[in-house]
């Protein structure tokens, strides 16, 4: 179930648009903010709040890659950009270093649910490549040492 706070936020989001369906994307974002992913229940609740079919919510959840539908992610979601600019400047080494440091493969979550590692396509930070995003925050001009420090700082 969504919290009252999220439901209130969904009501606010609805006001931005002439129809409720348009609020679907941001409503689902609000739902995801609660725990980092969305469940079947959340999607049903969003559908109910917007008076649309649950499958319409899942369509949105499944198309846009930042929604974590029914996939609980770790507390920290580390996404390393692997597109051309970052790759030219060594994104692969960064990914490898993180995999080694955490003992997991890309796409996996550490056993203590602390960190999930994924790759991402260009995040719009190419001038400061290589880069990664942890939850909402960008970390740029990465080096293997710098990454190691950042990871250590994640609780």
């Amino acid at each position, binding site marked *: 179930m969504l919290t009252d706070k999220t439901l209130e936020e969904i009501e606010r989001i609805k006001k*931005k*648009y*002439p*129809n409720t*369906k*348009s*609020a*679907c*994307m*941001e409503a*689902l*974002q609000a739902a995801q903010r609660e725990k980092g992913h969305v469940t079947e229940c959340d999607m049903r609740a969003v559908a109910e709040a917007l008076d*649309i079919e649950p499958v*319409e919510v899942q*369509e*949105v959840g499944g*198309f*846009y*890659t*930042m*929604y974590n539908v029914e996939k609980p992610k770790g507390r920290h979601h580390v996404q390393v950009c*692997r*597109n*051309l*600019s970052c*790759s*030219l*400047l060594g994104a692969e080494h960064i990914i490898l270093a993180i995999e080694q440091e955490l003992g997991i493969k890309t796409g996996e979550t550490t056993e203590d649910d602390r960190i999930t590692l994924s790759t*991402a*396509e*260009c*995040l*719009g*930070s*190419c*001038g*400061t*490549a290589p880069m990664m*995003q942890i939850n*909402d*925050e*960008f970390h740029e001009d990465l080096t293997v040492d710098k990454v190691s420090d950042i990871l250590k700082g994640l609780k």
Partner: protein
Amino acid sequence: MENVLLKNINNPGGHTLKNYLAGGGYEALKKTFKVTPDDIIQTMKDSHLRGRGGAGFPAGLKWSFIPKDPTVDKYVCCNADEGEPGTFKDRGIIEYDPHLLIEGMIIAGYAIGAATSYIYIRGEFEFGAKRLEAAIAEAYDKGYLGKDILGSGFTHDMYVHRGFGAYICGEETALLESIEGYRGQPKKKPPFPALSGLYSKPTIINNVETLACVPPIIAKGVEWFTSMGPEKSPGPKIFCVSGHVEKPGLYELPMGTTLREIIFDHCGGIKDGKNFKAVIPGGVSAPLFKEDNLDISMDFDSVMAAGSMLGSGAVIVMDETTCMVKSAYIVNRFFSHESCGKCTPCREGTIWATKVLRRIEYGAGRPDDIELLESICDKIFGRTFCALGDGAVMALRAFINNFREEFKYHIENKKCMVQA
């Protein structure tokens, strides 16, 4: 040259309304309200401002397509999806000078008679979205947005709509679908958004940089704008330089600056004193250039004439150590990942090409793989629904055509020709 679009890039705290006003902000808006909407559209036409989102369509002309019927709702949409790999200019404007964009959008709204506008910002730009929302709140607070703006009688509401991870939503019709709460798949044109766009109402969609050019054009005049760059695509342009250069970053330069000037004069040349190998002039969809094209003037028409595109102005530089098979693979993988799945050739073709490139890259290439790749390209090109598929093909063809030997070597020797 004095930075206009990136005025505040080195000025932390420059994003506030206070600072914006101190630099002459919202003066253009005041000037706008003194003339008619048609005057504004005419000014935009005279400025020859061309869309900075990639296609270079004249902004004034686009605005003039909007029907004049006052009983019909109209919308302004700002394309801040900034997904083209290599591009990070819109983020710069949004984070450092959000009011420049907001002012541009209000003026656009006034020009076409729109009471509502949406800024479609990509989901990853959490910081940028917050900054925009704060700036919009400031603007409402001081009466630059909302009812009867500055006593002009013009009312305008502005909202941020956050994307959530889909490159295709940069395509304008997909962007509109996304705002309406659907999967972001392109829609057929015609009808063009100017006639039937958001909620089937007349809509203009412009890139952040395009809209950010509007206030300075109004404030400083058309002559100032056209004094820079070639006649047919004048004005300042932000170049996003990344890859193997000494000083990557955003550079606001006149349209028509050459690639050589950008890379060697402004960005300090190739990183670590290595040799230049290739450059992508306008984001990964744009075919790459080799050394012989470095003196091309970076404006829409010249780059097009040389067989590539200015695109979003994302200059990605590759030095001699770069493996072209791998680069092609990365670029193609991106397109197949981002293919929206609507049309057959792009959905099935890009992923097939990616699989073939991957096997070459990992040393399992087959003798006729280059022909296979070219054949796949031919089957996709010109047959897709939107330009994403074409972009993927153009990029891949350029890699193969310019570096065929490297591909051959990779297939035959199961390893790179270059040693990183």
